[in-house]
């Protein structure tokens, strides 16, 4: 019972992290039809920046903030310098993100080396608390709490603000939204920066309980993509659901059949696509 509880909690907390990372991806994808292949790299950028700041200042929270902000700035710079030139051609935009992936991943390798690193949480958090059935690491609970808080904030943003309205409209029908007078480019930029911020913060948070290194960006990108596909492109609720699913499957299979863990996730993806080709909560949006 103990074991099952821990496995379940691991899955849920990992799902929380995946949600934070994938939420940015699904919004960018849903709105701009660009698969941001650099999303995994943004995660790593956030993680390394967070690590550096945390080592320099000793503050974990500052590390999280720095990781998010720096990544957001990087996203902004990329958007205004490169993406403007291929706006509208989503295939070329996707290819562009590949080139960016190559450059930034090598820069990170040059700056930080190839050994796995960890962001260190403050000592007060590095303990386990009693959850009734079993003890469980506090740090993971906190990350889950942050993920839930972020989910609520995102929900409020999307549902209750003007910008959120524009985003939803843009996901449904870009051309019409633009024709109605909304500066769709600005909305794109905002969403892209937001995606970068989310990826960056999830990088620092994830880096606290999972070690990261060169090449991990591909893994986190893959997980995020799977979450986005399962949940449905452009859907935050879908991302939450997908993240929970992937987190649990990952956790359960890693405990029972570790060699087949990734295959199981892929299998789940296939099953979902077989019944709901647009994802669990995706609309049949035009590409």
């Amino acid at each position: 019972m103990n074991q099952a509880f821990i496995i379940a909690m691991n899955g849920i907390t990992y799902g929380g992290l995946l949600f934070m990372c994938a939420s940015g991806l699904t919004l960018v994808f849903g709105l701009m039809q660009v698969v941001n292949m650099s999303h995994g790299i943004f995660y790593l950028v956030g993680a390394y920046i967070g690590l550096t700041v945390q080592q320099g200042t000793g503050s974990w929270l500052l590390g999280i903030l720095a990781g998010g902000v720096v990544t957001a700035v990087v996203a902004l710079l990329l958007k205004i310098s490169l993406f403007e030139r291929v706006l509208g051609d989503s295939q070329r935009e996707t290819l562009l993100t590949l080139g960016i992936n190559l450059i930034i991943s090598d820069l990170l390798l040059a700056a930080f080396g190839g050994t796995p690193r960890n962001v260190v949480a403050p000592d007060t958090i590095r303990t386990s608390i009693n959850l009734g059935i079993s003890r469980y690491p506090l740090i993971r609970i906190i990350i889950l709490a942050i993920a839930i808080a972020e989910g609520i904030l995102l929900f409020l943003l999307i549902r209750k603000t003007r910008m959120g309205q524009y985003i939803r409209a843009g996901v449904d029908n870009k051309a019409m939204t633009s024709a109605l007078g909304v500066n769709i480019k600005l909305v794109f930029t905002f969403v892209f920066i937001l995606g970068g911020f989310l990826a960056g913060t999830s990088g620092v948070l994830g880096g606290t309980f999972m070690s990261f290194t060169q090449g991990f960006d591909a893994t986190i990108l893959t997980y995020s993509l799977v979450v986005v596909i399962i949940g449905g492109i452009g859907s935050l609720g879908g991302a939450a659901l997908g993240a929970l699913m992937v987190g649990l499957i990952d956790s359960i299979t890693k405990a029972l059949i570790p060699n087949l863990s990734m295959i199981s996730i892929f299998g789940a993806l296939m099953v979902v696509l077989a019944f709901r080709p647009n994802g669990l909560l995706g609309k049949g949006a035009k590409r």
Partner: protein
Amino acid sequence: MSNPLLRQKRPIGTWIILIVIVLLALAPLGLSSFSVFLLSRILFMGLAAMSLYVLMGLGGMLSFAQMGFFGVTAYSIGITTTKLGWSFGAGIVFGIIMVLVVTAVFALIAIRTSGNYFLMITLAFGQMLYLAALQWVELTGGFSGTTAIPVWSFLSTRTPMYYMIFAVVLACYLFLKRVTVSSFGIALQGVRDNPAKMAALGFNTQLLRYVAMLLSGLMAGLSGMLSVMFYTMISPNTLVMTNSIMIMFMVLVGGSKKLEGALLGSAIYLVMQDFVSQYTERYQIIIGVFFIIVVLCLPQGFLGLKLRGRRTKKAGAAP
């Protein structure tokens, strides 16, 4: 019976290709060991790039699974020969069958998706194969991979191996060339350009794309086989996502609209890599910058440049 007015002169492109083939055939006689090795790598990586061309250039489907298929054959050969003691020939047959089976199953799911979804699912699949290669240590040797694969002994020297690779790649190239001008190839390009119209015209677009995937999987697998012959080993590092990006780079920089572009791109990439890595370890950044430049300024790749020049002479000729 042939009317001199209707007889077409071979376009200059064909002559260039013929000359290149002849030069490649003669290469081991004149070039240094190093160059022959480089050419060997250009050729079999070019085959991997050609496999992507089938999907990307002809079918308009960006795929990140190619290196995965490459790995399926390579590992199949490696595992059956080192762990089960099979002969190399048997390993090759098994490797080819495996990649076809894997592709056949994967393609059933993948063709249900298109565009960005397709890209994502091939990425997930490629990554899954990479992680399987890395983590299933008992089977694959984990991080160090499967080594000391007992390749046919006549392949242990430079020249026979080059000719083996050259022969296979040439055969595949000729075959794919034939495919691009066949009714299948043209229909596939139709699906790339306007799937709705093709469906309305009565073509089975799903079947076309499915066959394209099988073909590309086979080519990628053959490329994996050649790499096993060349390196006598396979490691998970070959299957990382970065390499799939490199193959995409090859197809793009050479020219995604032409089959030869894949080979040209392979040459450009490997030469650049060799050249730049003499000066710095950071060659990946240079490739990345180049990649971006190509996407922004040279969307048709280098071969596209030549095409544009000729287009002004033959007005109305299709690209």
